[in-house]
């Protein structure tokens, strides 16, 4: 194309460099479009009031999204940002992002591979207001349990920290949620290596993934178990709702008032898959006692025996645990005797 001299010249012109001259200003490109216009008044539809920085809410949302980042420093930094945002939040004002948004996003990180991220996560969790935890306790507990059964020892230990925090925040919900009692007990037995069903006569070899662990870890595990059992077995010293004691026309009012818990009819399991004994909810203390007696008590007592023999720190933790078991199961035995 374009063999004539004229065409060649035109073509050449397209690529010629314009000379810049001092004081003349930059030359406009050949294809520059004039975008200037004239108007009497200009109205902008959306005006950002913050002149330079996005709001804390937006930043928090951004950092929540960054929790999936592949770099662990980035994940930790995002968690740290969220933590400071929550801590610095003025009392009385709502959180920059509600807990119902934050918790589902962060709970995955219980299983995170990086140590720093997990530590920061615990800080974040502790900074959250305790009242918001209860409704998310079953989800959190699932993740915690996943952490407790994890192959990596560090994550197993960390999950205990999370569990302790969780028990501190919403003890009742934790022990009474679906699968919260039996599965957790099983999980603890597995952790401590106190499973009863391996009734071989041979000495058990040291577990593969350092399940028993050293004494320090075991002490920690027993501590967590003690907390857990205390939440589940030892009766709360909360006085029942006492509506002036003798509300004459209304008897047993406390059973008919609206429940204070969220999802009060969860135990009916109207929409979920059918549950077996393990996944069942045990809302009553008596139920829990019965299941504990059937499934775990023997193993724990046997395990405690061993641990007490070890003495030292381990023995002390074992003694504490035994005390709690005794305290929790005291009236259960009584019932049994009474029945007979």
């Amino acid at each position: 194309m374009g063999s004539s001299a004229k065409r060649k010249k035109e073509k050449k012109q397209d690529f010629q460099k314009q000379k810049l001259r001092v004081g003349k200003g930059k030359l406009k490109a050949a294809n520059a479009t004039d975008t200037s216009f004239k108007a009497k008044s200009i109205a902008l539809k959306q005006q950002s009031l913050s002149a330079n920085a996005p709001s804390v809410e937006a930043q928090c949302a951004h950092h929540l999204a960054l929790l999936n980042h592949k770099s662990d420093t980035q994940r930790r930094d995002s968690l740290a940002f969220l933590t400071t945002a929550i801590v610095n939040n003025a009392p009385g004002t709502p959180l920059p992002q509600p807990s119902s948004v934050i918790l589902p996003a962060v709970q995955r990180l219980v299983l995170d591979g990086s140590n720093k991220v997990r530590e920061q996560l615990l800080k974040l969790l502790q900074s959250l207001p305790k009242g918001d935890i209860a409704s998310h306790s079953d989800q959190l507990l699932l993740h915690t349990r996943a952490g407790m059964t994890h192959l990596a020892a560090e994550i197993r230990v960390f999950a205990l920290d999370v569990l302790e925090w969780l028990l501190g925040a919403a003890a009742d919900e934790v022990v009474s949620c679906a699968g919260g009692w039996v599965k957790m007990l099983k999980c603890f037995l597995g952790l401590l290596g106190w499973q009863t069903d391996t009734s071989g006569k041979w000495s058990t070899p040291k577990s593969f993934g350092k399940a028993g662990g050293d004494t320090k870890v075991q002490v920690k595990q027993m501590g967590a178990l003690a907390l857990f059992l205390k939440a589940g077995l030892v009766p709360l010293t909360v006085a029942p709702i006492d509506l002036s004691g003798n509300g004459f026309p209304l008897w047993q009012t406390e059973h008919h008032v609206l429940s204070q818990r969220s999802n009060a009819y969860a135990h009916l399991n109207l929409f979920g898959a059918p549950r077996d004994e393990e996944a069942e909810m045990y809302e009553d203390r008596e139920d829990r006692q019965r299941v504990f007696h059937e499934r775990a008590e023997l193993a724990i007592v046997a395990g405690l025996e061993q641990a007490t023999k070890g003495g030292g720190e381990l023995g002390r933790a074992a003694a504490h645990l035994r005390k709690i078991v005794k305290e929790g199961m005291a009236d259960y035995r009584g019932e049994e005797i009474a029945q007979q």
Partner: protein
Amino acid sequence: MGKRKVGALEKVDADLANLQYKVRRDPASYRDDFQNQYNQYETFRELFLQNPSTTDDGGIVSLRDLIDFISHVANCYPDLTAKFPDDLIQIISLHHEVLESELRDKIVGSLVLLRNKDVIDSSTLLNTLFPILVSTPSKSLRTLLFTKILSDLRSSNVKATNHKLNRTIQTVLYNLLTSDRASPKGIWAVKITRELWKRQIWTDSKAVEIMKEASLSDNEKVITGGVRFFLGGDKEREEMADDTDDDEDVDIGKLRHQAEINKKTKKKDRELKRAAATVKKREKKKNAPHPLNFSALHLLHDPQGFAESLFSKHVQNSKAKLALESKILVLQLVSRLVGLHKLTVITLYSYFLKYLTPRQASVTSFLACLAQATHNLVPPDVLEPLIQKIANEFVSEAAASEVAAAGLNAIREICVRQPLAMNDTLLQDLVMYRKSKDKGTMMAAKGLLSLYREVGAELLKKRDRGKDAAMGLRSGEMKERRFGEEETGEVEGIELLEKLKDEERRKKREELGLPLDAPTDDDEEEDEADNWKNWDVESDSSNDSDGWINVESDGEDINISDSDDDSKPPAKKARLSSGPPDAADAEKENSTTPSKSAEPEAKKISKLLTHHVLTPADLKKLQELKVQSSVTSQLSSFKKRQALAAKHADEGVSKDDIEAPAKLGKKMTREEKIAGAKGDREEHHKSTTAIRKEKKAAEGKSTTNKEKARKKNFLMTLGKAKGKQKRSLVDVRRTLKGHIDRSKRGGKRGNKGM
């Protein structure tokens, strides 16, 4: 997000592969660890079930890894993992649409693994996978499931046919097709059945029944799938069987030799054993009787009903919206069925009338279908208008040469099957085209002429009839066959076999010095026994007189032969149709055979046929004899015709058969000519030595010592050469003497034998 890099420290702890290895070796000791992992799997599963579409790639260990681990060691802890397969089945069947692809594939793979470890049974697996295959929108999952289903069906049928499983799956497929005839899901039933048919895993009528339902469905893809199976499934099966025969050539001798020379390793040992096993297997296979598989068309239960419903549903029905291509396929199947089973579907022929014009798209296929649908029980008056129309539309001076050739050939193909459909004026008209300048037309017309010389010479003009036909007509040997007339069955060339057997018997008797006739009872029995013993043995020629002497059990012989000792005259009398005593007589006998064939049928039926069971060896011999005496040239015309018809009935007519003569007239291009001239000769020239060497290698022979010495590396020979130069004269003499001595003796050990 990709998989995060796992640090070395993390790896040590979260090493499922390591644990798996240890568990496999000692399940009892690692029970606790397994229990922990199983607990974790359960928690992960619960987490996952909250939101099945999430990916859990974030953590160190994903659900995928856990599933993989557990399914690998599930057979070690059957009590702990009792619920595991059900869990997987539930996940995949409920959530397969939203699952992340890797996890989905892993679950499918794990289920198959569990099946291979016999944790679950085949029917559970297939009943899980098949509904997903039918319903999933993902193409990659479909291919995966399809291969898995097929391989599982194959592996469960390897040792023995698993009838129960096959029946279940066949029922599932059948129900899939019949439950919703309009849905395209039936294509999977077609695919699976076809594949299994090809591999000879399903060879029963139930599979054919499935395909029958497929052909009668409402979805076009399913219909064509089913129809194609009937048209090509058996050929595919045969090809597959041929392919598997020569997959790899194992030269066991070479391997054995190499094993002697090369370093002895366990691997080499194993290889040798495996090779020996394959060779043995192949030998066994070669000797095994050919598996008798019926073709799909023969396994149909109700061909008449099938053909009628196919025709009325897909072809004749004006509401059927099939593409022309698929319609032709269906038509091919219908006509094939009609031709093969000699069905009567009268409306089929009038249907063709509309399509027999040269402008019709793919008209040659229609012509082929018409020819295929013709058989000797079709009323000639139904075919006559069709032939007339073909002649009018195709065969004229104005039509293109290819068209005329195709038309003539189509008419010929129809008339081969039903000669009565032709009338004399039309035939005489058409035969005139043998003078055409176009080669294709000419050949087609000649074909028609030669056909009618054999099957209906009286329709031709006298001068066209040819010598044989004219003489046959005059002598009355050639008769027009009536509609519906069938000839009686017989074995071709049986008289030759009979003659041979007689001769053999005579020879044996002569050797023994017995009278030629008058067979004794024990003699006969002995021969019978011989016969059965040598059921499969090839009796190669007449000179081995001990093997195949068959004393005829003709009762007449016994009756006629009196106790006379002079043997010859009664023997001649006795043997009516049996072998002559000498060559001159044989000549006479041969010359009289035509007159014999003119005798009534009843006399022709050989005694060999009525009184004996022909062994395979007998049949082989019969074949040889037929070739030797070139029976085929002496065959009467209707036998030839019968052979022709038999060939056609089994194979059907294709479009190419109709088009073949038209191609004759075409000029080849230069390239085609060159390619044709080259044929399949060797491309490169090779020296005779190279060819000889190749031949030796193919025979599995090695090189000679001389050749080895010649080929030996020069540097390797240097040392010896140097040493030779430094020898003393005495030494040289000694070696030379030794050499002479050895060559005289024939090698170190000598050649004189042991």
